[in-house]
């Protein structure tokens, strides 16, 4: 039993964080939202150089072959910086989906190299394909994977999420649909924890500097207690994400997503409240994460569906002790 990220995993996460902290991700998000994805694609290419592209692409396709724990560690950092683009899809879900599908060599090596992005719709929980204009779109129907053609685009509360209707084009073959879905949910959960962490960091920084009534806002007890509660929620969501990465049991994956989305949502609400009016403006960066939290709360399945799945899978008297 060793329930902590190892040195390599911590280093991977740290390198992703450092790269993104230097990459002016907010500018990339704004461009992405304005249908100018070049800056965002550049960020994703730079991630490829530290081995993060097509993260779950198996080694036999020249990919990093990362497991769920590495994915969770990396996606927390992607969320912390609100990185735009089909990262869940291209780094995790599609690589898992196609890993054993004949013909996957058309795409997976390119995804691993950072030359190609992929996206996917898995109805009913993932009805649209994210960013299908910059990624190869796939559509899952039952157990079968198809390439897809993108249709109308829909606007999300998160302007950087461009959601496309897709229709099947060419049949690819059978895919690992369940694995792809679970990894997608897990990475969505990890992203949400990261978004919450990023929002809490922004809020903490802001209230240390902003003064009202002649004092830093962060000295007011109500502000302190709000942000402390956010910290507690995030600290207890993360272990569920890591635990789900270890077991990959659907129950645990759903539990992680429920807790992560609620903690991130709490972070968003509190961060907005302590910022006041500036938090609502497009020019301030806070909104970039805020709106993504609201969007991801119902991406990859609703909270209600995931809670139902948790409850249905609890085996009282056994479940609470993993690996007995």
């Amino acid at each position: 039993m060793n329930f902590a990220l190892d040195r390599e995993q911590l280093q991977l996460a740290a390198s992703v964080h450092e790269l993104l902290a230097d990459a002016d991700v907010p500018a990339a998000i704004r461009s992405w939202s304005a249908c100018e994805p070049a800056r965002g694609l550049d960020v994703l290419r730079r991630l490829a150089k530290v081995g993060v592209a097509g993260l779950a692409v198996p080694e036999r396709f020249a990919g990093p072959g990362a497991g769920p724990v590495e994915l969770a560690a990396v996606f927390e950092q992607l969320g912390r910086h609100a990185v735009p683009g089909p990262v869940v899809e291209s780094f995790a879900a599609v690589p898992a989906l196609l890993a054993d599908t004949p013909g996957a060599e058309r795409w997976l090596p390119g995804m691993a190299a950072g030359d190609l992005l992929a996206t996917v719709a898995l109805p009913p929980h993932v009805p649209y394909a994210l960013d299908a204009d910059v990624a190869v779109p796939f559509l899952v129907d039952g157990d079968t994977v198809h390439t897809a053609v993108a249709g109308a685009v829909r606007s999300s509360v998160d302007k950087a999420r461009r959601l496309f209707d897709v229709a099947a084009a060419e049949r690819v073959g059978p895919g690992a649909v369940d694995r792809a879905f679970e990894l997608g949910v897990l990475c969505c959960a990890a992203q949400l924890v990261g978004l919450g962490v990023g929002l809490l960091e922004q809020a903490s920084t802001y209230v240390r500097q902003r003064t009202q009534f002649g004092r830093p806002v962060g000295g007011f007890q109500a502000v302190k207690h709000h942000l402390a509660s956010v910290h507690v929620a995030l600290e207890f969501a993360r272990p569920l994400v890591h635990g789900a990465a270890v077991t990959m049991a659907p129950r645990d994956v759903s539990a992680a997503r429920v807790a992560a989305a609620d903690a991130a949502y709490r972070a968003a609400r509190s961060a907005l409240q302590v910022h006041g009016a500036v938090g609502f403006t497009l020019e301030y960066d806070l909104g970039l994460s805020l709106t993504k939290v609201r969007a991801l709360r119902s991406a990859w399945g609703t909270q209600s569906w995931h809670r139902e799945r948790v409850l249905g899978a609890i085996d009282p008297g056994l479940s609470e002790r993993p690996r007995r």
Partner: protein
Amino acid sequence: MDLDLPASVVAFRDEVREWLAANVPGPLPPMDSAEGFEPHREWERRLAEARLSAVTWPREYGGRGASLLEWVVFEDEYYACGAPGRVSANGIALLGSTLLALGTDEQRQRILPRMARADDIWAQAWSEPEAGSDLAGVRSRAVRTDGGWLLSGQKTWSSRGAFADKAFGLFRSDPSAHRHRGLTYVMFDLRAGGVTVRPIPQLDGTPGFAELFLDEVFVPDADVIGEPGDGWRVAMSTASNERGLTLRSPGRFTAAADRLVELWRARPDPSLRDRVVDAWLGAQAYRLYTLGTVSRLAAGGRLGAESSVNKIFWSELDIALHETALDLLGTDGELESDWLGGYLFSLAGPVYAGTNEIQRNVVAERLLGLPRGDR
């Protein structure tokens, strides 16, 4: 104790309902957008033609002298039929009630009829970069000059500021006076020389607010409300009384709550049932609370810190209503919709018009008698 509408109010309500059914336009572009502002102004003019733009004002200023109960009923009808948002609301609710209470006859006659007809649409100019919740920290100056004042400084979070015609706010006319003292309540033209307007786009993409930069903007004495230096009292005189009541009418929330119940019936999710019910009964509670206030005011009562209680409640209710709707929408909750727009707007509630933190301090200190403490 009763909830029966008098026959005259029923007649008024029926007239309003009928007029709205015949006149409400289809959806307009967003109020705070270049393409949406003038259609909203046009709509205000049509309301004014029917004397429905400021129903509680005296007839001479374009209203119809409606009682507060009639105002509640008007708002019920207005929001139940999905009529457009009110681009003149800030002026009518805030400046209008201040002028009615403390303006001169000349000011009322000059300003109110134009406001009622939306010939002038007014923006508020309260906040400054260093005076948000702490309004007494105002730094913008009003410097005495021949026949009037020269305004300089920076205002921010000016609602409607991007497209409005005129604005009102507090300026420091006595630089030696401390905080609440030495402030003057001034109206000024946003097209005047020395005014620069910088729209501030919001999360929904529209510039619901603006920054205003003022550089020796001349205003004549006639555009000062109350005495120079007495601006704080002027601003506060209406803040806690009628404004506490009229800032948000119950009709907004009961209409949204009814739509929420409809949405629930189309997409029932048992785990969200309690939130649907609580939002609905919150709207009912708000309506009844308002009717209680209307009854007390009609009997000669006054509102004090109760307006803080009111503000906390409606702002949290508004978020709860819209959050619940988005969760009911499931996977489509993130897509653009009226609910989503309303949600983004609702998030400003706890920050706007005195943050809820400030309001809770007021409730604790003035209604529960707790010590002021260091906040």
